[in-house]
């Protein structure tokens, strides 16, 4: 059976290292860290006082003047800027072959933050004898809450803003499979084009959990690094001294397109989505399957979908969160899938520089795979100084590496056990 080929014709991102693809990529290759002291709120006494924040961000002019996005959530604004970059690169903004009904959106976008000051002060002001007085709470809430600030927290509103800005009218879905969301979105968007339900899909994700309750939640889970004295090197995937991930924020957007559609309109094709695989650990909500069976199943399924052998993979962009558990489990899973070749395939985690963008992590990693293919260079795992005996593969430590890169694999594993892998290749 011949199936429709799906290619990438546009990319955009907003990350802790830059507000677009090129600045993020050059900072990554230069080994810069996007991590700094948390300034979005006072985290001085929190177990983790630092994070990977997007700095000095403002909605680019063409988006700001629309007026529709003024009250959008932080993550939606990141997504808009990333989408504008991707859309412009794709040339669809100027194409006479743009059909809104045949263009869809499939995002893995996260929820917005609570209206922290109002929400928290209400818990204090309406507190009575160890319990919330909901009658008083309601009275005050009607005075203080603003509906846009509330509704914009819904995860599907990111999609709504993008559809509005770019006039998209086709299939529209938002998913939130935690840290795997944007990789899964890319995979599912690919399936929609393959089946013929759309010709163009805007896909990717956006998220910001750098807010007091987000950091509280992850700190309570002991998931974050607490290396408060070594913050720029705190994210150190596969290093023996790693102690958790560094919370980041941002967005990434890809424009996917049916290959024939892209060719017919003379689009600049950046790369091809060759395969997608998905699985569930079905193990525990707090832990990954220690043998990495779920993670391996996702990788195997992606290879099968791409009709490729493990030896044909030139680079793995690891989930590599820098938590003690993930990096060991991922290493085991790669060995289970790749056998002896696991020791030969270069692997790295750009979370060492960017932190963990949660729902948006996967798409930014996918973008780095496309750039690795374009520039024939592999980004490094930074801050990997003391090898962990349980992590004994080639993680491209500390220096980017020139290489022949045709086919890349990108892994994302969500908290709770939803695993997703995509394979991106040179066209």
């Amino acid at each position, binding site marked *: 059976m011949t199936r429709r080929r799906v290619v990438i014709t546009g990319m955009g991102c907003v990350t802790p290292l830059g507000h677009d693809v090129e600045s993020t990529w050059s900072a990554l290759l230069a080994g810069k860290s996007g991590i700094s002291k948390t300034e979005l709120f006072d985290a001085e006494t929190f177990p983790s006082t630092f994070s990977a924040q997007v700095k000095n961000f403002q909605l680019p002019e063409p988006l700001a003047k629309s007026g529709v996005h003024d009250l959008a959530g932080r993550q939606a604004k990141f997504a808009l800027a990333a989408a504008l970059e991707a859309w412009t690169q794709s040339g669809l903004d100027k194409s006479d072959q743009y059909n809104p009904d045949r263009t869809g959106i499939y995002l893995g976008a996260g929820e917005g933050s609570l209206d922290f000051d109002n929400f928290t002060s209400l*818990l204090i002001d309406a507190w009575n004898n160890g319990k919330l007085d909901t009658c008083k*709470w309601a009275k005050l809430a009607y005075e203080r809450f603003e509906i846009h600030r509330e509704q914009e*927290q*819904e995860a599907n509103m990111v999609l709504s803003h993008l559809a509005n800005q770019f006039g998209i*009218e086709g299939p*529209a879905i938002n998913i939130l499979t935690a840290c795997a969301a944007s990789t899964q979105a890319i995979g599912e968007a690919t399936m929609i084009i393959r089946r013929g339900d759309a010709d163009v899909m805007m896909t990717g994700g956006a998220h910001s959990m750098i807010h007091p309750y987000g950091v509280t939640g992850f700190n309570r889970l002991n998931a974050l690094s607490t290396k408060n004295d070594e913050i720029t090197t705190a994210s150190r995937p596969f290093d023996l001294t790693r102690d958790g991930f560094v919370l980041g924020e941002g967005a990434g957007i890809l424009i996917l397109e049916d290959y024939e559609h892209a060719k017919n309109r003379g689009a600049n094709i950046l790369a091809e989505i060759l395969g997608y695989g998905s699985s*569930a650990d*079905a193990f525990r909500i707090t832990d990954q399957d220690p043998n990495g069976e779920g993670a391996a199943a996702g990788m195997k399924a992606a290879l099968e979908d791409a009709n490729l052998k493990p030896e044909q993979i030139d680079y793995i962009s690891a989930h590599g969160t820098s938590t003690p558990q993930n990096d060991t489990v991922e290493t085991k899973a790669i060995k289970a899938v790749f056998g002896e070749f696991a020791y030969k395939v270069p692997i790295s985690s750009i979370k060492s520089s960017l932190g963990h963008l949660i729902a948006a992590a996967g798409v930014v990693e996918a973008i780095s795979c496309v750039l690795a293919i374009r520039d024939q260079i592999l980004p490094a795992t930074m801050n990997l100084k003391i090898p962990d005996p349980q992590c004994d593969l080639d993680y491209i430590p500390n220096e980017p590496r020139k290489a022949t890169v045709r086919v890349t694999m990108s892994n994302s594993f969500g908290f709770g056990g939803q695993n997703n892998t995509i394979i991106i290749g040179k066209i």
Partner: protein
Amino acid sequence: MNERRVVITGIGVVTASGIGIEELFENLCRKHCSIKRIDMFDPSGFACQIAGQLEGFSARKYTPKSYRKAVKVMARDIEIAVAAADLAIRDAGIITRGIDEQNVNIDSSRFGSNIGAGLMCTDLDELGIAVNTSVTDGKFDFKKWGREGMENLTPLWLLKYLPNMLACHVTIIHGAKGPSNTITCGEASGHLAVGEASRVIARGWVDVNIAGGAESKVHPLHLLRQDLLGRLTTTHNDNPTEACRPFDANHSGTVIGEGGGLLLLEDHDRAVNRSARIYAEVVGFGTRCDPNGVNFLNPPSSSALTRAINSALADAQIAPEQVDLVIPHGSGVPAEDVAEAKAIHQALGQHAQNVPVCPLTGSYGNLFAGAGAVALAVAATALYKQTIPPAVNYETPDEACNLNINREPIQKEINYVLSTASSIGGQYAAVVLKKYE
């Protein structure tokens, strides 16, 4: 394209009007309404004080003994999904490790999940206790919170409220190791989840997929938000059973319900080989979006839903006249009912005036992310029983809607059911089910 056929072989529903499809369908047929004054908290400060609450509900009964202690880290939305999964899997006659570890009859790697979820909010008392340890001069004190206040929260606090945890708990209990997805598109989530899950079977990635959604918005913050959106009826606090009246001339808003549903979707050949009872076949799915949906305070338009319905009918390869029943979202918000009715007219043409339409929210309220799967469960059961249930609270037709809302249960031949959904924000979905022959 050569796709596999997908059928529904198990149904699990949890609503205020019934837990389990038999009880729900019976209550719908006798036009029972379960909407009452809210008693999960004191609602007297709110303009709308009623909801379709689950009485005495807990997931414990639906959770294997070995996993029961996990119920305390499940938000109510998750509990509903766990219960619905147990009901659907048992109903299908499938034995997972969560049902009976010794006699499992399903390949876990060929068993997927797609469970829609809403935006969950922390229990306010739970967070309030912690926050109120960190107050200085009446104001929240970040320094105290960071040093010690946050330690008053259970370590797993965040995981109670992550939307993907509905699917994660279900996959863990039942050993579903195939692709797992979590759709978060508000009130369109259930249709989107069932549609997407059926595609995963159709393309051969799994043989069984559990799909649907669940949500509980009976929570002060959600009640407030829906009221600020202007969507809730505020004139029926004294007669709650008449409050939710989709497509009726006196519709005045929606009512929050809590609940959800999961459908056990199965590859047709697998179902036939094991002689499973087949409720219906999933034959059409379409989704579209409205670029103006972002302006959520404006009245919704009908064109995106029209296109979603057209797409679902084309996917099912049927003409509009072949639709024998429509189960709409029918929120009861006047502008939303009018837009939905207009889309049905635009997509079905003349046939829209005759085809029976049966909204369900009048009975148990608007289940948000849980709504779609319950609507599709009722649609599948209508096909299986060849019975069209009646709408609750439909008395005076709203001329602006001009639909043939069904008022009494009807036994008749029905072959195709169309069900529609929309979200605040502009995502729309339609699903077509077919009588199984």
